[in-house]
């Protein structure tokens, strides 16, 4: 394949690690390599760095350091919050509420519990991907033990009314978890203001390293362990701490926090510009997800009559790295459950594209992307029997109309 300049546009999948983050991690491999549980100097140094990272992160989220638990990834945080709550609360009830557009880390964790006899209610979303807080209220029962609704959707970018949902759960005395993996580092988060009981984060979504995440667990809240073992994380998550990763995560969050406002503004401008250009320059294109209540960096569009993987493949050929709404690449032929949940017909869902912007992206790249996409979409439409049918139907209608 010919090599061109690559333009990375899939920051919702993962981000490059920020050079300053790599630098912050570096000493922990060969120099400060101690086990934070160890007694001697090298161990104490490690412990100190560990707790400094925790303090830093807690500060940014307006949490207590004792509310931050380090994990291996967003998936672990989600599984721990959901399964840990279920196991610890099963005497009170076995009913769990989630939404139809959750990440698989949440949905599959819930389904694991379903197999063990828990009952699951999966709330629908509206055409913009919004969960209605009132539907949460209406669905909570006597035996409901957990509501888990994501903060920001990873495919269509829709932001949920988490604060309202948290308030309802608090009122109803049901625990509330939110998968905030896509929100971490992108939106300001104040746990006290938010009122959620548990929040999941993953470092590699905000220019931190892969393989490290965290779970915010509100003070006083006790849930069962998922990873039992040593006394790490105050006896609640065993395993020698990934200190380099944790230090890196803290650094990455700090950097994101410092430039949050400016970067958010820049992302929104870029995002809205790209959306505008795509809708203007490519006919039969629709925006998926909420027009305003969406992640600053998320663009998700459907191009009618064509299929997503072939769009991605051509984009890749032209040097643009994006993601599709079709799960075709993962070996399944089903389009994304999120796009179906917002009511897209299968063939439209198949023709979707997610562009998730990041720190290195520019307006110039948006122009080039729009241009390439214009070409790609026409080429694929020219090959598409669906488009041919559409044109024929159109022509027939025009004829009828002009008669």
């Amino acid at each position: 394949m010919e090599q061109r300049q690559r333009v990375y546009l899939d920051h919702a999948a993962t981000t490059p690690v920020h050079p300053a983050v790599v630098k912050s991690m570096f000493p922990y491999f060969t120099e400060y390599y101690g086990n934070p549980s160890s007694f001697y100097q090298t161990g104490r140094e490690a412990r100190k760095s560990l707790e400094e990272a925790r303090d830093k992160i807690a500060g940014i989220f307006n949490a207590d350091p004792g509310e931050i638990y380090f994990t291996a990834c967003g998936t672990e945080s989600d599984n721990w919050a959901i399964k840990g709550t279920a196991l610890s609360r099963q005497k009170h009830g076995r009913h769990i509420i989630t939404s139809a557009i959750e990440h698989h880390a949440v949905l599959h964790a819930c389904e694991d519990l379903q197999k063990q006899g828990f009952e699951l209610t999966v709330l629908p979303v509206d055409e913009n991907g919004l969960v209605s807080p009132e539907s949460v209220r209406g669905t909570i029962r006597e035996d409901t033990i957990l509501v888990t609704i994501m903060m920001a959707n990873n495919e269509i970018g829709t932001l949920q009314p988490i604060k309202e949902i948290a308030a309802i759960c608090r009122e109803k005395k049901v625990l509330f978890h939110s998968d905030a993996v896509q929100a971490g580092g992108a939106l300001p988060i104040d746990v006290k203001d938010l009122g959620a009981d548990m929040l999941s984060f993953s470092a590699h979504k905000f220019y931190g390293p892969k393989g490290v995440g965290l779970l915010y667990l509100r003070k006083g809240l006790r849930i069962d362990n998922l990873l039992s073992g040593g006394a790490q994380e105050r006896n609640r998550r065993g395993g020698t701490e990934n200190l380099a990763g944790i230090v890196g995560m803290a650094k990455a969050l700090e950097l994101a926090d410092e430039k949050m406002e400016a970067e958010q503004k820049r992302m929104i401008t870029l995002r809205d510009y790209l959306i505008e250009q795509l809708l203007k320059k490519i006919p039969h294109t629709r925006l998926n997800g909420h027009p305003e209540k969406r992640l600053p960096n998320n663009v998700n569009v459907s191009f009618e009559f064509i299929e997503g993987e072939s769009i991605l493949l051509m984009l890749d050929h032209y040097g643009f790295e994006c993601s599709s709404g079709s799960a075709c690449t993962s070996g399944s032929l089903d389009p994304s459950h999120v796009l179906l949940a917002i009511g897209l017909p299968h063939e439209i869902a198949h023709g979707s594209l997610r562009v998730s912007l990041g720190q290195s992206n520019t307006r110039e790249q948006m122009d080039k992307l729009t241009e390439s996409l214009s070409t790609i979409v026409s080429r694929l439409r020219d090959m598409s029997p669906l488009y041919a049918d559409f044109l024929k139907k159109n022509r027939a209608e025009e004829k009828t109309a002009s008669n």
Partner: protein
Amino acid sequence: MQYSDKVMDHFMHPRNVGEIENADASGTVGNAKCGDIMKVDLKIEDNVIVDIKFKTFGCGSAIATSSMATEMVMGKTVDEALKLTNKAVAEALDGLPAIKMHCSMLAEQAVKSSLKNYFEKTGQMTPEREEMFKSLDEDAHDH
């Protein structure tokens, strides 16, 4: 998942894209729900495929296998064309990722479906030929 150079070539520069006006036969397989539709048009003279065109809605390998399959039967007699297998298409493309083998299946079936249409239209359907289409209806919605 990595496509071969051959697949990429047929995807980026597909052969025989289009439609044939007044085609002698055509066939469509797949459905939009599954994310793959292939339509094949044939121009046939003296039972020889003198022109073939396809339109495909689908992933990269769906387009590449359509292109390759049409190229492979172009110029063949209808009975030679009937012997096209998805394996042969995939091999001609230097292989397909395992999860994409169904696309080559679809290409085989699109060609066969157009041939079936031809035999039926021209009253040439024989029990032997009928036999070759048996798998068609089962598999086409199954991929």
